[in-house]
């Protein structure tokens, strides 16, 4: 009896193994059908980059693309569905990956040539890793620049391999309840850092010598402020060669001093008031924080009951060289080793993507991004999002330093700890950070895009 049981178990294992190994990929789309109808009766989309759906892709023959992404498979899946509805011979299979592993697996997969994904989402900080595998978009450069205000910063040797569909930057988020409790109104929204510090003082509550409510909390964000605010003084982070940094310029030192004074002189916050400003804001302990657009999603996920608003980052002068730096969320890349049929379909899909403002609007709303498409700039629905509205007025005056290597943030974070916790001298600490970053940059193939900013050369 036992022998029979063992045999049955082993047989079951074997059958399951074979069954599992040869299982069809049931969740994927079936192969596309042959499309014989070029005239879809649909309107041409887009302004300068246009998409005319009334044509056959790959002569109407079935073709399958894999599209790798790390987030929002439903949202990107809807786009793929919309495209496949127009071109039923094209099958786009969405493969969602965890963010952490994506950058390990994707380059390995792209080494497989046409067996790798045809389309893949890009983050500009990994441009150096992906560029060798990317095909340029088959779209006129001038048309791209007419439609997307950040496209110029993504031109590589006269071609575009990806661009931004939206951009994200920093803003000040404030707790509306605390704002009102301090007797502040919309009229009190500060424009300058001096005004900001006064407002923050009103929002600070200290009881029995102990801080119970920080007026402004930048714990964990010192390095982000340090890599943004100095632009307001007219300086750039990168030197003229665009490959080495300068952390000892006037803007950097003044910004560091201002941040330190906020805590030590004004007493509007404290480096000992928790290590995470976002959490402190969510827990109702801090009245104002400096955060990037993704904070909107963070609050929705973790603290949906907190009522908050956002306003543009204060400045040191009325017309700063740049308000802050921004970073973009990128359109997909195309595998340059894709088969000719896949390449044709992928290029066609990218054009559909770029000409379709509805798609871009959904994406920007989802990620709380200011749209890169000029057509969406004044969209009232998008401006209801405080993260988008806060930066909308002067978005042209934000600078993109390029896909910044992590060494900048990492070493500025260490400098922040030395300045705030170890009370080290600001100038010397920043010089040390600068030296370390420049050694790191010497080993990285990186060139900043600061000189593509329209005010570059007009620094103060």
């Amino acid at each position, binding site marked *: 009896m036992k022998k029979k049981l063992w045999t049955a178990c082993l047989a079951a294992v074997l059958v399951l*193994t074979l069954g599992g190994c040869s299982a069809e990929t049931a969740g994927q789309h079936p192969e596309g059908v042959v499309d014989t109808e070029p005239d879809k009766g649909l309107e041409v989309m887009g302004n300068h980059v246009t998409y005319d759906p009334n044509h056959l892709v790959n002569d109407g023959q079935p073709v399958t693309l894999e599209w790798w992404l790390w987030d929002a498979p439903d949202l990107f899946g809807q786009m793929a569905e919309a495209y496949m509805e127009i071109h039923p011979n094209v099958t786009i299979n969405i*493969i969602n990956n965890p963010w952490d592993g994506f950058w*390990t697996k994707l380059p390995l997969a792209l080494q497989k040539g046409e067996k790798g994904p045809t389309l893949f989402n890009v983050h500009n900080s990994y441009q150096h890793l992906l560029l060798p595998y990317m095909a340029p978009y088959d779209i006129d450069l001038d048309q791209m620049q007419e439609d997307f205000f950040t496209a110029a910063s993504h031109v590589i040797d006269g071609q575009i391999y990806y661009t931004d569909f939206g951009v994200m930057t920093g803003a000040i988020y404030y707790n509306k309840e605390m704002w009102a409790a301090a007797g502040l109104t919309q009229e009190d929204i500060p424009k300058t850092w001096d005004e900001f510090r006064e407002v923050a003082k009103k929002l600070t509550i200290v009881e029995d010598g102990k801080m119970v409510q920080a007026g402004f909390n930048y714990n964990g964000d010192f390095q982000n402020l340090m890599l943004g605010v100095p632009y307001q003084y007219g300086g750039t982070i990168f030197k003229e060669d665009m490959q080495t940094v300068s952390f000892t310029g006037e803007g950097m030192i003044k910004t560091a001093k201002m941040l330190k004074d906020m805590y030590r002189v004004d007493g509007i916050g404290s480096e000992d008031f928790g290590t995470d400003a976002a959490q402190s804001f969510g827990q109702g302990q801090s009245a104002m924080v400096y955060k990037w657009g993704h904070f909107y999603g963070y609050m929705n996920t973790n603290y949906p009951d907190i009522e908050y608003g956002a306003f543009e980052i204060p400045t040191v002068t009325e017309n700063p060289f740049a308000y802050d730096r921004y970073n973009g969320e990128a359109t997909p890349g195309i595998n340059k080793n894709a088969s000719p049929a896949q390449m044709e379909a992928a290029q066609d899909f990218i054009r559909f993507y770029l000409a379709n403002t509805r798609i871009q609007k959904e994406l920007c709303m989802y990620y709380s991004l200011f749209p890169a498409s000029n057509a969406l700039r004044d969209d009232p629905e998008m401006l209801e999002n405080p993260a988008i509205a806060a930066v909308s007025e002067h978005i042209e005056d934000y600078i993109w330093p390029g896909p910044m290597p992590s060494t900048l943030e990492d070493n500025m974070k260490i400098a922040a700890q030395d300045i705030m916790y170890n009370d080290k001298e600001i100038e010397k600490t920043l010089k040390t950070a600068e030296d370390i970053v420049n050694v790191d940059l010497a080993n990285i193939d990186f060139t900043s895009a600061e000189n593509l900013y329209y005010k570059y050369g007009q620094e103060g």
Partner: protein
Amino acid sequence: MKRKIMGAALFLVLLMMGVVTVVPFVWMVLSSFKTNAEISALEQTLLPKAFTLENYATLQSNFNFLRYFGNSVFIALVVTALVIYISCICGFVLSKYQFKGKNLIFGFIMMTMMIPWSVTIISRYTMFVDAGLQDSYLSLILPAMVSGFGIFMMKQDIGALPDELLEAARMDGANEFAIFHKIVLPMSKNSISAIAIFQFLWVWEDYLWPYLMIDSEEKQLLAVGLTTFNGRYSTDYGGLFAATTISIIPVLIIYIIFQKRFVAGVAAGAVKG
């Protein structure tokens, strides 16, 4: 008296260690019934203030949880069964048969345990991709089915069985196949239990290799799925805790099934030679 005090002190230390070990687990399970706001709230409580099943109800919307769960159970069971069987056969041969190069072979097997996985993973990846095994469960089963640890454990355990017992079986006409299945396997239950628990756990929590080899979402494993709760900017702790709570159940079941023999098995593998 002194003995009693020492015993009580030892009991207290063990109790504290037990509490320290168990409390995070209990906290995670209870937190899976809290909202994200409560999980991140300033004032922490062990029990949920506002009990919610939302994290469990929305599990399936984040990824195909049940599918991933089923895939993980399938792979973990198959690999565990294969490892047990292969380890027992190898352990039997290496401990009870005399042939040239036996120690050399065993030495090689031991060496495989001493090479960090990070050293071999790139060459292994290239090899499996070139063999066309990407996105196939064979790529997960083949490299895991021969375990140096399992063979070592079983060699130690089977080596301790009296040779006379096997000789007696041979005298009674049993062939080697029968001896292995009817005598050796039943007498090695303790070590088999230990290997089963270890191996199941290793396969269950393995992340990088399944992630690299499996592309199709419908073939993906739970350990990979759990990482999707860690977004680029924030983590859905409620969802993560709920998914992790469920994912622990198979490991607990395996442990409950084999626990009686587990300690004896580990001890046997460790001291017999």
